[in-house]
């Protein structure tokens, strides 16, 4: 890595590619671009980027497939860009290893916040931490204790497991199926009722403790995301 982070922008529409390139350059990043799935793989192999911004609809292949191929050898975060109606495609791409997504049309502020969060996370790896701090929320993994601004709140084992998974992925979306599999087990991937019910109770308890309900974002049709530490109330 030399100097500023390198971002690979992938979009089949040249005007959009160009606009993103200019915006990100102005914001201080180095930018490479690609218009097809094949170009993306070549560009990423020639000079490995620190972040990939990937449009889900490409003329020569779908985004999920590109994600899976990149994930084989690239650890850099992947930010998906897609239209509103593409929820199933988003889920597939997230399952294939994408880290986050933005829904078109998005504002520059939103884009830059997402880029910053993803780059920050890839620098300071959170793995191995025993206590996860997300704003005023603190999750002690070995002791299974959750505190909000220092005060302990009582969660059931399932609620704790849910919050742990969300906190481990703070700022990153987890699909419904990912959460169900991780918290309940592989046999429960379709039990949406379980997830909705426990998520509702977890939010109620966090809200009572002073954490706004929308700190766990609802990604309708996709899953949930605990806010990035940067945007959590501290």
């Amino acid at each position, binding site marked *: 890595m030399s100097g500023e982070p390198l971002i690979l922008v992938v979009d089949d*529409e040249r*005007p959009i590619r160009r606009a993103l390139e200019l*915006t990100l350059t102005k914001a201080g990043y180095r930018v490479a671009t690609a218009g097809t799935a094949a170009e993306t793989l070549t560009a990423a192999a020639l000079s490995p980027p620190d972040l990939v911004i990937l449009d889900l609809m490409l003329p020569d292949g779908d985004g999920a497939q590109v994600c899976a191929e990149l994930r084989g050898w690239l650890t850099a975060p992947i930010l998906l860009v897609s239209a509103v109606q593409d929820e199933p495609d988003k889920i597939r791409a997230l399952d294939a290893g994408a880290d986050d997504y933005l829904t078109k*049309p998005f*504002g520059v502020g939103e884009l830059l916040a997402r880029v910053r969060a993803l780059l920050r996370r890839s620098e300071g790896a959170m793995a191995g931490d025993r206590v996860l701090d997300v704003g005023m929320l603190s999750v002690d993994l070995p002791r299974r204790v959750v505190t909000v601004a220092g005060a302990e709140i009582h969660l059931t084992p399932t609620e704790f497991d849910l919050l742990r998974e969300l906190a481990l992925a703070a700022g990153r979306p987890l699909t419904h199926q990912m959460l169900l599999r991780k918290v309940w087990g592989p046999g429960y991937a379709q039990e*949406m009722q379980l997830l909705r019910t426990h998520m509702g109770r977890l939010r109620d308890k966090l809200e009572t403790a002073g954490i706004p309900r*929308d700190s766990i974002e609802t*990604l*309708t049709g996709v899953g949930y995301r605990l806010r990035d530490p940067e945007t959590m109330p501290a």
Partner: protein
Amino acid sequence: MAATRTNGRLAAKRPALARLRDPRSSRITALLVSAALVGASTLLVAALTPSVPVRSAGVFYLLAVLGASSVYGLWWGLATSLSSAVAFNFFFLPPEHTLVVNSSSDWLALAAFAATAIVTSDLAARERAGRDEAARRAEEALLGERLATVIATAQNLDDALAGLGDQAARTLGADTGVIVRGVSPSRAAGVLPLELNGRPIGELRLSGGDPAIGASPAAGRVARQLAGLIALGEERERRMREEVNARALLRSDELKTALLRAVSHDLRSPLQAIAAAAGGLHFAVLDDDERELLDTIGAESGRMSRMIENLLDLSRLTAGALPAAADWLDPRELVEAAVAELFRGRPQDRVRVSLAPDAPLVHGDGPQLQRVVVNLLENALKFSPREAPVHLLVVARGDFVDIVVSDTGPGVGPADAERIFEPFTRGSRTGEVPGSGLGLAIARGLARSSGGELRLAPPEDGGATFVLTLPATEADPRA
């Protein structure tokens, strides 16, 4: 293969049974055979009397009784018993060659013989009837098996039934039979009505054989079997037709979906490019007026893309190319996500959210229902005075959950109450507020496709209140 073999077995069995049952030929043969049996028994007894006491030798007449009754039934058995008794008396009991009986012990022997013969006749005849019945049932079962095979594998039911009428007729002892479907059975002689649980299926027209055959229990069984299998075949035909139709529909739906997807991509791309280009000027040094112009580009391209989204949704809804997923959803999540989508995470205080803490989960398509709530909120914000709050409520109501959006705008006139849900129609009080008249039409369409309903609440003191009702169970909110 199976059908052919079954057929062969039936054909081999038929002549013997038919000969036994044919009423015209059997009387003469029965008479001859019975007489021959009595004669043969007389010869046998005559041959044995020198060595066997004559009163004991009479038992050999029972062989004749047994033979006649087991082949020709009870009445022939009794007739043979009587003639055997007469022959025994005439030829062997003293005084011989008269029908006179002298000693009381001879009377006793004759009476014992007669009683034994009658009982034997009855037993043998019963056994014969049982055998006949079993054979008939086996034949009927074979017929059923063959019918089921033919009907289950036939491409066309009428073709399959063409050969089965004769088969059924022969099983019942008639010569030919024709199965006619879809007629109300007539009660004429030689016509076997086919009914299933009282529902007329058709009839079996028999010719040849006993005209009363239609009234026998066997005919009833065959008729029930035929009716059931024809009904089954008709059901199978109907299913096959439906499957073909469903496949055709699915193909055209897939085509429409693909087309609309392509169109929407083409319409969206330029707008996204405009928005991205405007975004590229984010870092430019601009004065306030220039900044305002830039914001207008951003805001209006956003509005345009929402309008295109609405237009596409409407065409998808009318084309049936927007199938709703059936997921369990938390209504509180739904409204929170809608607010977040509308304000894109910016802090806001115009939408006042109030959630019933005990709201049950609802059933429907998450992204589509979120669009409904977003559309309602957009409308409410648009028509309310600037800075006036809009209320968003989640109310649990038994089997349903209501999501209520109310504003303090001009409200909806009574004449417009239903009209506003029609596409491209706007209420008369919309004034200068821009809009295409699509939002509510789409909202209602999406709500309904998820099994919910969207209504305008009766007007109160100003403003408009829309109620989105969603099923918390399998109940129908429109009921």
